[in-house]
């Protein structure tokens, strides 16, 4: 498993853009949000928690279709599924590698971009916490969607259609956590709910992902 994660990370670095693309997208999204709704703090500050979460979510979505598609094209996926590694472990490793290349950099970059949208500084720690706790769920759900659509030629649009509705709870709880923090309310409840979702997703979805992979390689 460690070997697989390490290989995926190395590929992300070598291929270029593994880390950078998602972050670049996040920056563009924040900039366009400001350009779209107006420059004043009165308009932007209330939008900031939702916009930051939405940006992170869409940036996550960008790289999902590559999770299994490249491995399928060059035959690696066949070899991985005949290896001693159970397919569930392949699913977990892929989700972990995806999180390290997208979710983690987004979490680190978010506090830098948050002031652009006038998010109150008091909410920054909660933004980091909510993203750190919530983005693993996005990766796990996305890996499941990628496994469902890996054999399809025009899979990426379908992938978004399948994955985005499942992102609803994480978005709701994660953004609510930051919003409450920005308004000076107690944000622990939504944070705990976000964490619960993530734990549930990590615990259960790899089995569904593995089942989908087995079907798709038949």
């Amino acid at each position, binding site marked *: 498993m460690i070997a697989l994660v390490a290989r995926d990370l190395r590929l992300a670095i070598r291929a270029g853009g593994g880390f950078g693309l998602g972050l670049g997208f996040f920056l563009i999204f924040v900039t366009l949000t400001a350009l779209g709704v107006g420059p004043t703090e009165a308009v932007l500050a209330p939008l900031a928690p939702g916009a930051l979460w939405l940006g992170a979510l869409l940036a996550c979505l960008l790289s999902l279709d590559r999770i299994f598609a490249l491995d399928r094209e060059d035959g690696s996926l066949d070899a991985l599924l005949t290896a001693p590694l159970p397919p569930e472990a392949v699913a977990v490793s892929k989700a972990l590698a995806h999180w390290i290349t997208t979710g983690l950099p987004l979490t680190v970059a978010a506090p830098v971009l948050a002031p652009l949208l006038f998010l109150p500084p008091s909410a920054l720690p909660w933004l980091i916490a909510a993203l750190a706790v919530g983005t693993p769920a996005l990766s796990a759900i996305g890996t499941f969607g990628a496994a469902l659509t890996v054999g399809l030629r025009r899979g990426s649009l*379908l992938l978004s259609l*399948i994955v985005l*509705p499942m992102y*609803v709870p994480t978005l709701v709880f994660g953004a609510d956590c930051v919003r409450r923090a920005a308004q000076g309310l107690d944000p622990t409840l939504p944070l705990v709910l976000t964490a619960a*979702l993530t734990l549930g997703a990590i615990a259960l979805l790899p089995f569904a992902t593995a*089942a989908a992979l087995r079907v798709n390689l038949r």
Partner: protein
Amino acid sequence: MSLWEYANPRRFMALTAKVQPWCWAVAVLLCAVGLGWGVLATPEDFRMGHSVKIIYVHVPTAFIAINAWFMMLVTSLIWLIRRHHVSALAARAAAPVGLVMTAIALATGAIWGKPMWGTYWAWDPRLTSFLILFLFYLGYVALWQAIENPDAAADLTSILCLVGSVFAVISRYAAQFWNQGLHQGASLSLDAEENISDVFWIPLVITLAGFVFLFVALVLMRTRTEIRRRRLHAITLRERTA
């Protein structure tokens, strides 16, 4: 002889050929009685006026929208566990019906919302849940259409249905958590019987039963079509490979 024998396509076709016309007849009869009674023969509600009569479409479609997904969940499980082809095809047949029912429930809700709350759309938890359910239906139907191999499609959509069900339920509670305010109370819902007097209630139940039969008839019809399509496919496959 067990119930499972009806999962054999030929037996299923033979049985449903007899059952289906009766389903249609009962559905049309109950809907006609229920809707006729409800729309023409009930008094106007003292608060809602004429607009209350849209519940005779709104409530049954909403009911079917949720239960169609539940039926898909059950048939998907049967396919995954017992590999009965008819079960998978029934799930496939039910999905577009559920999709349309959800759309009608949303549309009638919006039309009703205008006179009641003065707006077509409010991000009420119940409405939001239905919108999310609609999105789940869309993804499910799209996945069925995208995969060429029918058995693989049945497997993958069944897995999606299982996982999607969990997320749909969580989304429902997330929507409640997200917007607890500005609800107009339980007068909309079925579980608040005290808010709906018998005058409205009886025709509503009849219409509801009518829609259930309508749903069954539609699903049977569509499943029969899917079975015929698979048979046709088996024939063309042989023509191509022979």
